[in-house]
């Protein structure tokens, strides 16, 4: 057991810290889940890309710097410590890209990944439908074969598409074999949202931002070169992405360590009775636990193991920790918690964002079923 980082890793941390301190926008950018904020965030993403901080763990040929998983974690710790902007490109770089690295053709990698890293193409996730949420295999949007043009024609509706109103592209699952049973007969498509037949309607979220969208597809042509993986294998291709979404790539520990530290700072500033102090320390300890559980997992990954259903435990833990951290901050703010202006308003905004965590990427109820069945071996209902 060796709990130290190498001199090279420490040097990388120092470089990240120095660059972020010099470059993180002050005051903070407007929310990336609004139109103006999204544009401002893309400029920031471009700045990250230019110094190869946009996708540190990717190969250099696609815009990364071949960073190890440890360096990626260090970068993330520094990123959130510096209070740097949310990553509006995250659904592309953290959810789609791992799937492209695993299933994509060389042509797809060359065509898509560098533009994704630079923020020139922005990707939203097209999975949920009006009748397919937690029950994702209930997807009804159709893909019909068009042999004459060498592709597929997509029809149907996607919903709760995060930042769908601002993104240029969508990755999603469509039913390509209506005769196959639920999990079979789905295909993973990459869709340019400017293609004729696509209509996008923004939807205001709980926090007042137009962060959601409905995407309507009416006979939208997608070429064979924009199928990811094999036709009718979309479910297994997509499951590779859910592992990322639930696990460490979407929610690095740095994010919660930074929130926990801000909570500690707030508590120092505002004081408070012992009962609250105890709960705050409990949440701080949980953020530490998340960090060390991640180090545990990353050690195993580095040594060749793969993650399995444990990613469901991780998802429940970070999403409920995030809510807890924000609830405690709101308690400390007391009557001022409701204010939408002033230095503390970020806590309510963060709380609204945190509340989505136990819902998206598979609700925590579904995750608990997965844990019981696949970690503890309990029988399916």
């Amino acid at each position, binding site marked *: 057991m060796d709990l130290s980082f190498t001199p090279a890793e420490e040097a990388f941390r120092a470089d990240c810290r120095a660059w972020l301190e010099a470059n993180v926008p002050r005051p903070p950018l407007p929310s990336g889940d609004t139109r103006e904020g999204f544009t401002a965030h893309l400029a920031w993403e471009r700045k990250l890309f230019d110094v190869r901080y946009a996708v540190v763990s990717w190969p250099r040929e696609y815009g990364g710097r071949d960073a190890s998983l440890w360096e990626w974690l260090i970068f993330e710790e520094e990123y959130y410590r510096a209070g740097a902007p949310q990553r509006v490109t995250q659904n592309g770089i953290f959810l789609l890209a791992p799937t492209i690295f695993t299933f994509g053709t060389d042509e797809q990698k060359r065509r898509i990944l560098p533009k994704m890293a630079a923020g020139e193409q922005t990707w939203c996730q097209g999975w949920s439908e009006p009748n397919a949420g937690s029950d994702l295999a209930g997807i009804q949007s159709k893909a019909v074969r068009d042999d004459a043009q060498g592709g597929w024609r997509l029809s149907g509706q996607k919903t709760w598409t995060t930042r769908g109103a601002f993104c240029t592209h969508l990755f999603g699952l469509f039913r390509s074999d209506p005769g196959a049973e639920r999990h079979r007969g789905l295909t993973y498509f990459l869709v340019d949202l400017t293609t004729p037949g696509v209509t996008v309607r923004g939807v205001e979220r709980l926090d007042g931002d137009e962060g959601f969208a409905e995407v309507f597809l009416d006979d939208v042509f997608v070429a064979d070169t924009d199928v990811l993986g094999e036709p009718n294998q979309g479910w297994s291709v997509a499951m590779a992405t859910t592992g990322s979404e639930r696990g460490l790539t979407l929610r690095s520990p740095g994010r919660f360590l930074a929130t926990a530290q801000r909570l*500690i700072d707030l508590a120092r500033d505002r004081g408070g009775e012992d009962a609250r102090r105890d709960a705050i320390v409990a949440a701080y300890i949980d953020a530490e636990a998340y960090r060390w559980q991640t180090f545990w997992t990353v050690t195993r990954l580095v040594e060749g193991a793969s993650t399995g259903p444990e990613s469901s*435990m991780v998802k429940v833990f970070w999403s409920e920790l995030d809510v807890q951290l924000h609830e405690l901050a709101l308690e400390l703010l007391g009557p001022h918690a409701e204010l939408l202006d002033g230095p503390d308003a970020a806590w309510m905004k963060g709380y609204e964002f945190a509340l989505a965590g136990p819902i998206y990427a598979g609700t925590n109820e579904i995750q608990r079923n997965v844990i019981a069945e696949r970690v503890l071996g309990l029988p399916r209902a």
Partner: protein
Amino acid sequence: MRFAFTDDQIAFRDAVRDLLEGQCTPAHVRAAWTNETGRVPGLWNQLVAMGVVGMLVPATEGGLGLTMVDLVLILEETGRYAVPEPIVETAAFGAPLLGRPDLTIAAAPALVPWADTADILMTNAGRSERADVELLARPSIDGARRVFEIRGAAEPITEGLDQAYARGVCGIAAQLCGLSARMLELTADYVKERKQFGVPVGSFQAVKHHLADARIALEFARPLVYRSAATLEPVDASMGLAKAADTALLTARVALQCHGAIGYTTEYDLHLYMKRAWALARAWGDARAHRNRVANAIL
């Protein structure tokens, strides 16, 4: 960074597990509830022979000269089997403090378990020879834990106490993780078999979610405990114990609820582990007390 155990450390743990699987069964623990000492006859000598008791004592003093990282997994196993022996108190706390692999040491902040069969006693007041003090036996909810109040003079411990305490806290936390794992296994096995309404009760979502919560808590307690074994920082040890104690008490509660009435009997084995968890979760300071230590460091 390599946050994992070595193959040798895991092999040593497995060897101890093999020993306990045969020599510390529920029947052995049950027998300890009613025998003279509260301990398992012969087990201590086997742990001594394997080197577990003197593991942290320097090789020049007759120990193995290993570290708390080597010991922590083994202590977790002693929790899993509810070993009724002062193994944390001796191997993690007292033996390396005294540099003696040959003594049995009973230690605790207040009530001292198995003090009557130990050579040296240690409490917050200091250390004493057993022969020099008066022991007042008190009955514990865990019948195998023979706890005593100690009356008489104690010599203050002046050196190495902070790190010894961190090792002790880490060891207790490791045992609580092992107990949690055991209670989870027992319960998962039971709800797979027990049928009501024509199906295993483990197929009900309400039961699944209880057990998932306990499993999640354990998943995030262990890394804190292992980290504290490596750093031996008192604050790190307190974080580990706070999380492990909460985990064990939650798991005990969930395990009992998911068993239903069978778990509420002493004929069934669950209570052996549950009662140990109730005791250990407070014996070296409870979760809130350890969070208070963390608060003093960070707030």
